């Protein structure tokens, strides 16, 4: 017998932003689908439910005519299913393959990484958010997209304002204007770069899309998705991995002794604090999920951050443990929309950025534990990570 969706209505939006995990744990116990009033959406928090949903795109669709993402970015591949989605994804794929990441992007990321480390090294201390992770992610994304060297702060601003626009459920006109302005500036950048990419095909995402013959509307929309969704994730993964290791020095010693552990360490970091905590799906036909009745056109939030802390899947889930038994997680999503940037992120974060930080900055340590800040729920990561090292 199916029952209505239970509600959590005694937590504030700020509670969610500060630490959503206790709220997820409550929701997970209450049912497969639980409405969190402060978030204004019904959340799916159990690992197996999300896997089931992502294997059934006909029932749980990414197509959503009312999507704010589409309003801000155009008709992006994130809000399509089936053949349309597959064709657009294929057009970007050559730039994002693991082989391309290793052969082409790794040397470029390495140069950016070393420059950033050298710039901050003499000071002996820094907030890794601004001094390293944000510029690393932004400049890496600039290279990957084929943007030709946009100032990293500009790119970071575009990314943030597009995401703010996509989450602008209250319809704030100032946020909408800012998102539209960033969207225009991205289109101008694309227009400026396209002649070069046409004249000299290369490994960048823009070039791949040109070579695949994508129409300009598609290039605009999907490059905006890559700007909105390709910056904060590697940035937050870098910071989370550094934080996890600095808070667990035995694990730091283990990964220094055995560099093969950098891969598992990265996967554990994004499981522990998933940079993208939630993404939506639209219920395309009435369905019952784990005893909860879902109506057609209802929005549900797939809370992968919660699933990655599901004790039915991960023992002692709130503990950062790079040595836990290998077990797939949902930090990159699942199904046809599995993060296309996964392999590039693995190369940037676990092969270059974080190992080199620990290599080059002797005795890297948290300078001020009270100054460490972690915030967010839809997107979550450290927002301040003050560290020091021996000069």
């Amino acid at each position: 017998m199916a029952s209505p969706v239970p509600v959590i209505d005694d937590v504030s939006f700020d509670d969610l932003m500060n630490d959503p995990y206790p709220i997820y744990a409550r929701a997970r116990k209450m049912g497969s689908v639980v409405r969190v009033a402060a978030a204004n959406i019904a959340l799916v928090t159990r690992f197996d439910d999300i896997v089931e949903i992502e294997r059934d795109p006909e029932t749980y669709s990414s197509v959503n005519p009312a999507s704010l993402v589409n309003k801000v970015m155009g008709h992006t591949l994130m809000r399509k299913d089936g053949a349309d989605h597959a064709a657009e994804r294929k057009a970007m794929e050559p730039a994002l393959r693991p082989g391309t990441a290793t052969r082409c992007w790794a040397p470029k990321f390495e140069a950016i990484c070393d420059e950033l480390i050298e710039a901050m090294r003499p000071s002996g201390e820094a907030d890794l958010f601004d001094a390293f992770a944000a510029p690393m992610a932004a400049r890496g994304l600039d290279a990957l997209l084929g943007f030709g060297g946009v100032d990293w702060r500009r790119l970071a601003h575009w990314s943030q304002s597009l995401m703010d626009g996509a989450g602008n459920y209250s319809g704030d006109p100032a946020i909408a204007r800012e998102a539209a302005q960033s969207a225009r500036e991205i289109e101008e950048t694309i227009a400026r770069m396209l002649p070069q990419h046409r004249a000299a095909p290369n490994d960048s995402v823009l070039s791949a899309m040109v070579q695949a013959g994508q129409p300009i509307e598609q290039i605009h929309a999907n490059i905006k998705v890559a700007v909105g969704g390709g910056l904060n994730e590697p940035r937050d993964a870098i910071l989370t991995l550094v934080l996890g290791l600095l808070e667990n020095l035995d694990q730091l010693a283990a990964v220094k002794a055995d560099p093969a552990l950098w891969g598992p360490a990265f996967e554990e970091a994004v499981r522990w604090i998933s940079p993208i905590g939630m993404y939506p799906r639209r219920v395309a036909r009435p369905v019952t999920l784990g005893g909860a009745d879902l109506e057609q056109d209802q929005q549900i939030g797939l809370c992968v951050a919660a699933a990655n802390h599901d004790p039915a899947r991960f023992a002692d889930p709130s503990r950062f443990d790079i040595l836990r038994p290998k077990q797939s997680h949902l930090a990159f999503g699942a199904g046809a929309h599995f993060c296309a940037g996964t392999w590039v992120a693995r190369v940037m974060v676990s092969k270059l950025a974080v190992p080199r930080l620990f290599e080059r900055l002797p005795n890297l340590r948290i300078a001020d534990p009270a100054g460490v800040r972690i915030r967010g729920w839809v997107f979550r990561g450290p927002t301040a990570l003050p560290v020091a090292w021996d000069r």
Partner: protein
Amino acid sequence: MQITYVQPDGSARTVKASLGVSLMEVAVNNAIPGIVGECNGSAACATCHVVLPQAVFDRLAPPEDHEIDMLDFADSPRQPCSRLGCQVRLSDEMDGMTVTIPA
């Protein structure tokens, strides 16, 4: 039809399968260890690596560059008859075949 999956430790399981379904889907539906299928058949996650019998491999159209790239970065090294299970759809002549999940 039937497919047998052999694990790295040599243990084998034979499961029922239907025409047109992928080797990844059959494995996931039967909870065969070692085949995860995170991307559900989009050739994006490299978690459904299988090794086919030579004769079957030879009969199929060769893997595209993208699939080869993914196989090169799968957890286990690519072998001459490696494929992503999601890219192999079952046809009549595969009935009864044995595929190996690499170590």
